[in-house]
């Protein structure tokens, strides 16, 4: 691991970042432990004593809300013999009992009961044998993050200029909150960073999504979904941002020729629901309908959250060559029901028609990366280009087809991988909590 610097050059990245099992193990510790990692949205566990299970890198985690409403990140590992203590994806529980030998924990992580307690040595103290906890948790506009790194910046500092962009996403809802519904799960045979590269890649839609572009032109005509990438995307004003700390932003809005609603391909129920909205809201109907389509931006919060359309997609690595993507659909709180019904159908549209082509291409990349003697992946587009601007807060802005955002997240990757920060767990009651917004 001494030569990580040599693997990331200004214009290219070494194939081993995608294929080396040792690098993957280190990433799962240092990136998915040392960064602020997205865990869940608070609407997934709204009530006292609710919980969800997830993973932080390869670490199984139970995120709980105690009876007072406070959040806790409990590692899903019995302090006795390591069995996971919770098997459900979500639910409500005050206690978690290990099925193996009956050790029982509170939803704050305290060990509350050990069966047949006689026989343990005198110094055995239940207070020393609770579940391990995340030492730091934080929230930003309903998004819950955690880190094992006591030296990490504050969550607000970590998000930096990405914070106001999260605000824009959330504030498309009249109530200023989103409510996460259910999730689409998919798995592909490729390294997790292929999905990450793609999230900041405004060069691929013209080619990777040609089927979707051609279909829309043939069937529906006009400036429909993704037509902004049909030819010369950089002439449309669309741009990408390298936000620092690995966060990326792609803004498609300057490329649209009409409203979000007019741009959106027709989805099932479009006419009936648009008519209902028109009847209810009259002259304001156009504004209400604008809430239904996706946000037309891609905001990627390193290392594992892709905010796109109306969805929160988590990048969940399984192994060096396999990755899960879980796409949680967000309803707009305070919006009419009709808007959120349309959001469900819209959230199926590109994901079922367009995303299969993305995943196919990720898998083709992983296949190509298998050749040891062909070592480098090119990411030089826009490097040193005069169109790249650096703003006062250090954000780098470039035309949408440039690869600056990818180079940006790889800098953050290298920093976390090289820093080798001390990662620690906490005991019940020791977690520090940051409400960043």
């Amino acid at each position: 691991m001494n030569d990580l610097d040599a693997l990331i050059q200004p214009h290219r990245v070494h194939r081993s970042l995608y294929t080396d099992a040792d690098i993957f193990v280190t990433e799962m510790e240092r990136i998915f432990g040392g960064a602020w990692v997205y865990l869940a949205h608070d609407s997934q566990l709204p009530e006292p004593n609710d919980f969800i299970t997830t993973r932080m890198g390869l670490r199984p985690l139970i995120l709980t809300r105690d009876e007072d409403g406070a959040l806790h990140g409990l590692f899903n590992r019995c302090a006795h013999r390591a069995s996971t203590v919770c098997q459900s994806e979500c639910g409500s529980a005050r206690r978690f009992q290990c099925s193996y030998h009956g050790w029982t924990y509170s939803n704050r992580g305290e060990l509350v009961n050990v069966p047949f307690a006689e026989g343990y040595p005198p110094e055995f103290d239940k207070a020393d044998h609770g579940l391990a906890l995340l030492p730091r948790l934080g929230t930003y506009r309903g998004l819950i993050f955690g880190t094992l790194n006591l030296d990490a910046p504050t969550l607000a500092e970590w998000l930096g200029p990405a914070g106001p962009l999260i605000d824009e996403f959330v504030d498309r809802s009249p109530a200023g909150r989103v409510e996460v519904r259910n999730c689409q799960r998919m798995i592909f045979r490729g390294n997790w960073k292929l999905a990450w590269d793609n999230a900041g890649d405004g060069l691929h839609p013209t080619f990777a999504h040609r089927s979707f572009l051609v279909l829309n032109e043939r069937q529906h005509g006009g400036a429909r979904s993704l037509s902004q990438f049909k030819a010369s995307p950089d002439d449309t004003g669309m741009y990408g941002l390298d936000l620092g700390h690995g966060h990326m932003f792609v803004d498609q809005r300057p490329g649209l020729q009409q409203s979000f609603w007019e741009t959106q391909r027709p989805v099932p129920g479009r006419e009936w629901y648009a008519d209902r909205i028109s009847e209810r809201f009259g002259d304001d109907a156009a504004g209400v309908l604008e809430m239904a389509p996706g946000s037309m931006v891609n905001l990627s919060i390193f290392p594992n959250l892709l905010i796109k359309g109306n969805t929160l997609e988590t990048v969940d690595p399984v192994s060096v060559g396999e990755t899960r993507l879980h796409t949680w659909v967000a309803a707009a709180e305070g919006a009419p029901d009709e808007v959120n019904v349309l959001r469900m159908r819209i959230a199926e549209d590109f994901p079922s028609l367009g995303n299969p082509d993305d995943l196919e291409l990720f898998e083709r990349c992983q296949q190509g990366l298998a050749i040891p003697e062909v070592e480098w992946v090119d990411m030089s587009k826009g490097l040193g280009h005069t169109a790249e601007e650096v703003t006062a807060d250090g954000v780098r802005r470039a035309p949408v087809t440039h690869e600056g955002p990818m180079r940006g997240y790889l800098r953050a990757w290298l920093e976390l991988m090289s820093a080798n920060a001390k990662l620690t767990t906490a005991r019940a009651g020791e977690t520090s909590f940051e409400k960043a917004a």
Partner: protein
Amino acid sequence: MVEPAASVLDDGLYQRLADMVSADSPDRGPGHTDLRPAVEQALYHEARLLDDRRYRAWLERFTDDCVYWVPLDPVADPRTKVSYFLDDRRRMTDRIGLLETGWAHAQEPPSRTSRTVSNVEAWPTGDGDTLARCSTVVWEHRKDRLNAFASRNEYVLASLGDGWAIRYKIVRLVDCAGDVRKFSFVL
């Protein structure tokens, strides 16, 4: 470009679909044996059209007010939950049209499939249609992989004198809550 027909999906149709998958719906008892042979032939025919990738002919087997639905939550109301997809005729036509562009990378090379349809049961719906349920396994081979998609399917079939048309098709994948490999052939 031909502007496709408007969607027929409204709140009433959503309610009917939600009722069809509701966990509260009563058991219908054994299927009607007199309906079964003809229903089997309709389902086998549909399976063969899909295995042969004769998608336009497949689409012709559906009514104009049809719905083709692959839920992610097997008992959820589709108004409040996202599905793998819930298509009306317009989006079914798009799904086929996408494959016909020649640029659908996920189907290059295309999948080869063989589907087994079994446990066929049928009941009259009371309004001239027929409700059919079956178990289906689609074996898909593409590149170096053999995948299986197991599902419990529900159909509402409309009688068309000498034949059948599919009004609703619901594919309830057994692993709909798990990690599904993206598919872009027609299930």
